[in-house]
């Protein structure tokens, strides 16, 4: 560092901005995203009808066989949730694209991983609402019992929602950077398979009233959630930077 640089650094003291902690920034971003969604209802307003239509279509295709409907219901629940969530991830970045707001996030002097965490918290909240509403639809349409182990089922939904959102919030960024919308499902769907499989198996067991093997699947979900979150936190900055 030259003498000139040292002088300028003295003239430009460290600003309070650098004290904006990861958690504060994450919460600010999450609150902002959720506030925008509550007001616009863009994401859930569009994806819930999609999930309902998909379930109805499968219901008619599978016919009135109640045993078959109940056996396939957990898979349909998570597939409907997954496809609807992919659309939700794309929409969650639309508000960043308008008026160049994404550049505002880029230029904020914060760890970009904190921005990623904030967007993941907001997306996971929305996905949780989505899969919970879808689960109720599945219970009504397919007769899937949800009350046999409600706490473990709730934990499955939460871990599944975090898993889907941690990847969706990372790759959803690509839909506004270079407008590579087609890349979102191509990247998200294969990578999220372990989460979907774990969530389906856990939901299936819990719906049958069995807790055998559930802990293992929940462990798989938690492990993938942690791995996806850590990866997203570390690489988000590289994706968002020019």
């Amino acid at each position, binding site marked *: 560092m030259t*003498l*000139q*640089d*040292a*002088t*300028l*650094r003295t*003239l*430009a003291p*460290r*600003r*309070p*901005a*650098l*004290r*904006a902690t990861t958690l*504060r*920034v994450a919460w*600010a971003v999450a609150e*902002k995203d959720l*506030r*925008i969604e509550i*007001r*616009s209802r863009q994401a859930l307003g569009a994806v819930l009808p999609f999930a309902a239509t998909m379930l109805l279509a499968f219901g008619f295709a599978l016919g009135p066989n109640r045993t078959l409907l109940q056996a396939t219901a957990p898979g349909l629940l998570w597939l409907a949730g997954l496809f609807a969530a992919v659309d939700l991830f794309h929409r969650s970045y639309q*508000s960043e694209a*308008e*008026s*160049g*707001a994404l*550049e*505002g*996030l*880029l*230029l*904020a*002097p*914060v760890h970009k991983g904190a921005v990623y965490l904030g967007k993941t918290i907001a997306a996971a909240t929305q996905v949780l609402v989505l899969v919970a509403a879808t689960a109720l639809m599945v219970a009504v349409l397919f007769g899937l019992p949800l009350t046999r182990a409600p706490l473990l089922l709730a934990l499955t939904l939460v871990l599944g929602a975090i898993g889907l959102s941690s990847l969706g919030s990372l790759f959803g960024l690509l839909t506004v950077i270079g407008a590579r919308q087609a890349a979102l499902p191509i990247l998200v769907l294969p990578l999220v398979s372990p989460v979907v499989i774990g969530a389906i198996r856990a939901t299936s067991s819990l719906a049958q009233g069995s807790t055998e093997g559930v802990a293992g699947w929940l462990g798989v979900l938690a492990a993938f959630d942690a791995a996806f979150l850590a990866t997203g936190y570390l690489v988000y900055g590289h994706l968002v*930077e*020019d």
Partner: protein
Amino acid sequence: MTDNVVELRGITRVFDGLPAVRQVRLSVRAGEIVWVCGGNGSGKSTLLRLVATALSPTFGDGAVLGFALLREREEIRARVELLGHQPRFYGQLTALENLRFVCRMYGIDVRHALPALARVGLDEVAGVRASSFSQGMRQRLALGRCLMRDPDLILLDEPYAGLDVDARGIVTDLLADAERRGRTVLLASHEPPTEGTVHRRVQLESGRLECVGEFAR
């Protein structure tokens, strides 16, 4: 010893094989207000975005406020405000909520948001969503963000675009305030700024820095 706030050393930025800014060498001293002029596509916006670290140079290096352009981006971002073509606000949030969000991202006390809106004449519409704002009101909101942050280096990209006479006065006041407080300003505009507000003019032509001139003051 010099005290250059901006020191660009042969900066080039290429988009899809086409250079938008070519081999630009520019030094801006602390407290200077510099008008970057040039026609459409001359590279003014790209130059400002490079200084703001919104873009990375393809070639070249430099320093802003003594921090390396390539390696110390967050340090630069904490001290620089870019007012670009886009206001960078969320339409579904109110004017006040937008500025409060900026406060939280920059670690500023959220109580500074309302006075900043008052300074740009938007305090009466603080609770109105930004989506219903006109272009001029959005530009005022962006100016409010700049005033609230009080950065060491202000980068104004076509700040007069869409502004009425009153709002142009806000830009003039901002420049006067910056000069009084010893802040440095780079103002990119194809139209001349208000007389007496800038110290120096640099001209970009097809991405090259063509000429530099001092203004008599």
